[in-house]
């Protein structure tokens, strides 16, 4: 028992120094179980290949250059979509948040169009733009924009009226108020919206690539499904998971925390 406790203490000290270890170690038992289940062939190998097979196919696809290409395609699509979603979403959110009239006119429409959901647009988008980049970008922009707009509105509306008044009485113009009061005040919410939006956008991208794709990780998985190659499907899933984990954990979450610390005081 004490030996176990010592072991655990060592583990805790280790993870305190390198937090990455705390993220990685829990996957070891899962990998081991996966390996064990496939080694004794509970399910036929065709249905559930082992970790070694997946690693081998990873190496092969990397070597052929297919995987880096597809990965790049997916990430670029997500980045382009996220860029336009933010560029369009933040001004729209500011408008709706600041003007009561715009709020009355647009808020119900926003709720409804958000409810339709990105994937339901795929069918008609394919008719409009064909199978290609425009369709996918549209889907991602559509997905990213709603959380950004809704959260921006929330952020703008949560700025105390006294802040506006203080800036006004100090002689700030309307533009300066937007730039120096409203935007920084809403920033923590905007970033949260962007993070949520990208989470949805990521899934929408996979769906779009599966359904209308010609390249990308989602396409790779579906192509593998057509050929009946479970190895590549599993590989695709693992890559998707790792990639999003990295983007979310090491890029988006720190940005969110940092903006929250820097500007979060304004919101209640």
């Amino acid at each position, binding site marked *: 028992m004490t030996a176990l406790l010592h072991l655990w203490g060592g583990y805790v000290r280790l993870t305190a120094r390198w937090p990455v270890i705390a993220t990685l170690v829990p996957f070891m038992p899962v990998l081991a179980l996966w390996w064990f289940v496939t080694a004794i062939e509970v399910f036929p190998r065709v249905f559930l290949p082992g970790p070694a097979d997946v690693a081998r196919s990873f190496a092969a696809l990397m070597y052929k250059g297919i995987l880096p290409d597809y990965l790049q395609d997916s990430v670029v699509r997500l980045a382009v979509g996220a860029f336009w979603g933010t560029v369009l979403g933040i001004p729209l959110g500011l408008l709706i948040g600041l003007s009561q009239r715009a709020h009355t006119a647009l808020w119900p429409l926003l709720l409804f169009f958000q409810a339709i959901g990105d994937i*339901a647009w*795929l069918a008609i988008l394919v008719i409009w733009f064909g199978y290609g980049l425009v369709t996918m970008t549209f889907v991602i922009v559509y997905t990213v924009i709603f959380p950004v707009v809704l959260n921006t509105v929330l952020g703008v509306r949560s700025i105390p009226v006294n802040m506006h008044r203080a800036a006004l009485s100090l002689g700030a113009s309307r533009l300066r108020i937007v730039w120096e009061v409203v935007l920084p005040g809403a920033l923590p919410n905007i970033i949260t919206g962007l993070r949520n939006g990208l989470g949805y956008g990521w899934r929408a991208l996979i769906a779009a690539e599966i359904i209308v794709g010609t390249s990308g990780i989602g396409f790779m998985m579906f192509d593998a499904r057509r050929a009946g190659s479970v190895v590549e499907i599993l590989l695709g899933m693992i890559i998707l998971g790792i990639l999003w984990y990295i983007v979310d954990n090491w890029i988006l979450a720190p940005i969110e925390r940092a903006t929250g610390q820097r500007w979060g005081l304004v919101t209640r």
Partner: protein
Amino acid sequence: MLRLRSLSAAATFGAPFVVLLTLWAVLVPYFEVNPRLFPPLLAVVQAGLESIGDGTLLQHIGASLLRVLVGTAIALVLAIPLGIAMGVSPLVSTFLTPLFRFFSVLAGIAWIPIATLWFGYGFGAITFVIFNAVFFIVTYNTLLGVSTIPRPVRNAAASLGAGPWAMLTEVLLPGALPNIVTGIRTGLGFAWRGLIAAEMIATNVGLGYMLFVARDFYKTEVIVLGMIVIGVLWLLLDRLILAPLERRTIERWGMVQRA
């Protein structure tokens, strides 16, 4: 007075839709938009009446809702006990958190290719996708909810002589409930998207299938009808069931979270 006010609120909420529909009804015929690109309002209404008349719309809606219901029910039955069991011990929960975060990232759509391979095209694969979308997110949120219950609350209950069962039903479950409900709402949001995507690929009945078959024949009026039905259904589900449920749970039990 109150009725009048809620009536006018409904009117201001509905007005933008009336404007949008009017624009649609006027502009599309005026510019003579090719109905293969975008249908006139009348055609959509007609398609709606037709599909209600011959029962196909109800059949698609029924099939989709049944899948969501079955998948969600199975997921909840498994996820909540598992989440509580794992959340009780801080060691286990910190150890397993990265694992569940990883899988909740994968949840839903990414499982479609392998689900269709394991279960074949049809009810099994789609229900599995929904199960997945809900299961991991709810488990993760339950685990999070249980582990945020302040230690003193549990100690107090224990020192007052609460047995394991009383602890579960009177401390752990109520304490984690706000998180659980939030998890259900997020999970269902992903599940709904996953459902539409899966139905486009893997079945022969359901709303996603209706959209995709219509696309093959360039029947844009059916596509638009399907999109509206999907939007309205989700709005009803989210605003009439999930959002009030979440609000009420947080009002009733939320204080436990940060005592």
